């Protein structure tokens, strides 16, 4: 469970830092007046949407940190035989990187007011994300063909579980991306698209980071790294 505790420490650290900045040490009972010693922040829908996404990413992070914790806890029990990863996973990783970059292009394009690059970025990002999902399905199919069935061993089960969880989050992202793309195809202007494009790009980067961590886990690079760190400390 150490992974999830590290994750929590990070979240709590940020939360405490933010709370302290919000006047956690102020004395509200002696302060009368509008501002109460704090700058007034007018609510705005775009900011609320961004904050909402940030909170959702924390929830998603918690979900994956717990999955990774469970994985490492099980992998630590002597009889662990990791899955031999199909090569296509590296291609998929590359596809997801491209997808993320494409949406980043769309976001910077939206900032500049450049509808053409928003269009290219959105379409390319959506297409590569679909390609990634297809690639993951191919990986499952290859593993099955080689006899690495879901139920035959805990490492297999974990492999299918983490890829499925991540894949579902990509699919969910595609729904949101599809809505933004749909609006674009109906002729919405850059100004109306920019928030949605930005949110999608942020979500995609989070998906990419999580996938890289999961790849590190599945290839046991992370396990080896932790082992080296332990040896250095000892």
């Amino acid at each position, binding site marked *: 469970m150490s992974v999830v505790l590290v994750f929590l420490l990070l979240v709590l650290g940020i*939360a405490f830092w933010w709370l302290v900045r919000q006047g956690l040490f102020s004395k509200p009972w002696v302060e009368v007046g509008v501002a109460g010693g704090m700058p007034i922040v007018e609510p705005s829908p775009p900011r609320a949407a961004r904050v909402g996404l940030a909170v959702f990413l924390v929830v998603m992070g918690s979900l994956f940190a717990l999955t990774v914790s469970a994985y490492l806890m099980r992998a630590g029990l002597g009889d662990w035989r990791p899955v031999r990863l199909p090569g296509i996973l590296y291609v998929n990783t590359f596809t997801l990187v491209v997808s993320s970059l494409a949406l980043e292009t769309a976001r910077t394009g939206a900032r500049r007011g450049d509808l053409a690059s928003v269009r290219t970025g959105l379409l390319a990002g959506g297409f590569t994300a679909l390609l990634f999902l297809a690639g993951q399905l191919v990986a499952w199919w290859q593993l099955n063909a080689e006899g690495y069935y879901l139920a035959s061993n805990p490492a297999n089960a974990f492999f299918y579980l983490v890829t499925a969880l991540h894949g579902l989050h990509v699919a969910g992202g595609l729904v949101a991306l599809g809505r933004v793309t749909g609006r674009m195809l109906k002729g919405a202007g850059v100004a109306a698209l920019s928030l949605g494009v930005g949110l999608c790009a942020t979500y995609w980067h989070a998906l990419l980071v999580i996938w890289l961590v999961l790849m590190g886990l599945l290839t046991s690079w992370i396990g080896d790294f932790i082992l080296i760190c332990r040896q250095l400390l000892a």
Partner: protein
Amino acid sequence: MVDLTHGGLGGDGHAAGHAGELELYHPTNWVTKYVFSQDAKVIAIQYGLTALAIGLVALVLSWLMRIQLAYPGALAFIDADRYYQFITMHGMIMVVYLLTAVFLGGFGNYLIPLMLGARDMMFPYLNMLSYWIYLVAVLVLAAGFFVPGGPTGAGWTLYPPQAILANTPGQQWGIIIMLVSLMLFIVGFTMGGLNYVVTVLQGRTKGMTLMRMPLTVWGIFTATVMALLAFPALFVGAVMMLFDRLLGTSFFMPSIIAMGEPLDTAGGSPILFQHLFWFFGHPEVYIVALPAFGIVSDLISTHARKNIFGYRMMVWAIVVIGALSFVVWAHHMYVSGMNPGFGFFFATTTLIIAVPTALKVYNWVLTLWRGDIHFTVPMLFALGFIVTFVNGGLTGLFLGNVVVDVPLSDTMFVVAHFHMVMGVAPILVIFGAIYHWYPKMTGRMLNDAMGKIHFWVTFLGAYAVFFPMHYLGLLGVPRRYFESGDISFVPPSAQTLNEFMTIAALVVGAAQILFLFNLAWSLRHGKPSGGNPWGATTLEWQTPETPPPHGNWGAERPVVYRWAYDYSVPGAASDFLAQNDPGPGPAAAAPIGEGGR
């Protein structure tokens, strides 16, 4: 995946009243106003009524269990399997579908926007979806009673491997239904939770700094953050167990020989589930307790006409309790073969939580000290909570220590402890809060006489049920037993005590009928309350209309000039100054020593 782009784009729809304000959704007919409503207040009442309905099912289940314990065999249809199913459903409904849903979905939805001067939650559509998914989760859960084999009887902790092995009641369908329902609940809750957090962060009105928020909002806010972080653990656990049950994987299933035959499973770790479950399960205790803490603080301050003692400390304590509650989970697992070093660590963190918690109790007592205490029904429930919480908290200190916990594990002492601390105590707060805010929700007061009878029967009755249970636990009476049979160390008098407790439980349950009657009767016949019957300072009592219409505030949102606890300010014209009251003098005129620290 939730759609966070909704409502944020503002490309179409209605013109906003003010620059920078959220657009309100406008109901066009009865269905969108009261059924598929996006108004947080309607959603709150929907949450509350749904939770109340399923809670009544759980109440009846507890009656049936108590009757079986006191008069074994009196009801012929209760066999061992049914008894386990009743235990499981009672526990799960009460903890998740009643308490969590009422505090966060009910009071969270009603009070957060009103207390912060917002017009609604930040993502109203998502909020509506949250309720409907919760309703589906409840219906799926209730469907468990009607499938072949009945609901799961694995105990509310659902420990594998037993939860999915043959011969556990409900192994066929019940466990699948339970896991699916929990997953739905978590998805629905996440949608609501995002709303509560973002509304606190972004929806506050002018002048409402974080440190001016009423403690109710602090409690609900912190609990929501905790729930958002903790529920994924249950989600992951549920997904993995569903894989084990349906797809034949072995996440939690070790090699097992059942009836002399080896099963197909191999290589799973049952302890892994316990870690995941309690990583959710322990914060869950505080997810229920923190809103209760917050609400009680506001009830006590309002009904004692005195500012809350040590507001800042109260906020810090809520935040610290929230953070600490994530590093105590393994104190539920002392008997699962744990490294003694870990046991020591978790015992220490558990005892440390007692510090901020005790601080809150001291502050409540000091708020009452020399206050102008009005023994209104909400106040009675708040006082009842303090006493009950201290009781349950103290037995928690017993159970938090490894050496004391091991002999008491799986006895009735544990049942008594958690019912006091997270059953009776939060329920008392829920009642107090309903009596307190019912006038705002309906414009009428609840009947006082019925309320007082309800309080005394519930309060004394709950003690008659659970106080003797501690004693049974110390005798060694085990929990979860369908019937005790002849156990040499349990004297026959224990059975007499069981009968006493059962009669008390039946009476307490029946008293709730009076409460339900009061809720319905007062809707028509209650005394009109006016906008602010308790003379409270917080914003929800300052709405132009009662009950507040959609949008809450009329043309202008209120502006906040002071904290939430300006009661009995010397020199002020009335004995309270509302948060949106600009004059007269500074609150600093309060005598030093009474304004918190």
